């Protein structure tokens, strides 16, 4: 447990010292969403209707772009070797790294999302549902993405393969999250979708660290 928190603290400190890693996915997220009103034109009703999809697809892409930094620098400077050689279970350390990564790249998206939702004309109640789906959904994106990164970190140009691997796995999260926001817009109950997202988060938390750890060990050889 002590090692878990040591890893979280180390990664947060690292992120604070190279802030570009926090800012870039966030800027990407904001830019993509502001591009839609420009591209679609001044049609508030249309924008409002497609807003859940826009926000969630942008969040998905921003999360994916930030994934590569999860293990890349550790792999390049040998810190990953030391993690693998630690007597602590690697899956626990990996979970610590994923948590720190989400705090740095996922949480800022959740915080800035209400502003962008207002931009697209969502109502206050819908925004609160959107926040819940983002809070439950973005950690799942980090957890699932970690498996893909661990598999591709040893490859020289893993970026493209990573997106092909990971994006299809993001589909369930996208479906339930965007649907929940859409239902909230119509004033329908959304408990079922929220429960599904919560279940995905719990499952991913428990199941994702194992294959990630195994894939990292494989990348070492």
């Amino acid at each position, binding site marked *: 447990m002590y*090692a878990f928190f040591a890893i979280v603290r180390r990664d947060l400190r690292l992120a604070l010292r190279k802030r570009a890693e926090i800012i870039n996915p966030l800027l990407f997220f904001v830019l993509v969403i502001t591009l839609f009103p420009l591209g679609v034109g001044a049609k508030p009703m249309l924008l409002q209707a497609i807003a859940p999809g826009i926000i969630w697809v942008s969040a998905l892409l921003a999360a994916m772009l930030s994934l590569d930094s999860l293990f890349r620098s550790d792999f*390049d400077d*040998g*810190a990953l070797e*030391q993690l693998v*050689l630690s007597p602590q279970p690697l899956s626990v*350390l990996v979970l610590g790294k994923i948590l720190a990564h989400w705090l740095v790249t996922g949480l800022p998206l959740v915080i800035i999302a209400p502003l962008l939702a207002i931009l697209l004309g969502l109502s206050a109640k819908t925004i609160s549902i959107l926040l819940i789906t983002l809070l439950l959904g973005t950690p799942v994106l980090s957890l699932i993405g970690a498996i893909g990164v661990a598999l591709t970190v040893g490859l020289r140009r893993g970026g493209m393969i990573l997106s092909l691997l990971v994006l299809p796995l993001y589909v369930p999260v996208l479906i339930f999250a965007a649907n929940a926001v859409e239902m909230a817009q119509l004033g329908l109950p959304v408990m079922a979708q929220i429960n599904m997202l919560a279940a995905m988060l719990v499952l991913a938390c428990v199941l994702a660290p194992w294959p990630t750890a195994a894939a990292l060990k494989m990348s070492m050889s």
Partner: protein
Amino acid sequence: MNSITPLLQGLDLACIRDDRSLFSELSFVLGAGEVLLLEGENGSGKTSLLRILCGFREPDAGQVSWCGGAISTSAYRANMAFVGHLDGVKKELTVLENLRVALALGQGNGGSLDAALARVNLAGYQDVLISALSAGQKRRLSLARLLVTAKCLWILDEPFTSLDKQGIQLTEQLMSEHCAQGGMIVLTSHHPIQLTHGAVQRISLSSCL
């Protein structure tokens, strides 16, 4: 250093890389207080053998055992430290922060971090970022990491690279002390080593074909 006598054993190890046999039928037994020096020309499989001993790679034949058990256990990893080509330190963190992470991952031996840094001539560098250190100073920091963690087996890949004369002497001295305390070392080196303690076994990988 340990309640059971540590013993690292390799039996009939072989390594094949890109259809080329690097070494085969390589066996050794390493007990407490002993040093295993791997020699051989470039590309003879020294680093590959070290990575097999670390558990990063599976040997293509044969097996490695630690105290009679497999090396994929956390009991083995709790007893071994590896210093490879890569330093394994984060260049955005300070010297002290890096050592603290190493301590959290392994098990400390109760010694103070400052004393270990003083030992490797890095006293006063506690709050310096790694990116401001020279290659030799980073090597010294990896030595400090070995000193603060209670590891019985040191696996060192070319430990003398980029060290100055004093650094090499210091490394040899630390290695001798480690052996005198019952530790064991596996290393590769092109540099002749002089140890005051520890029986040195040499394996030339070029002759293990």
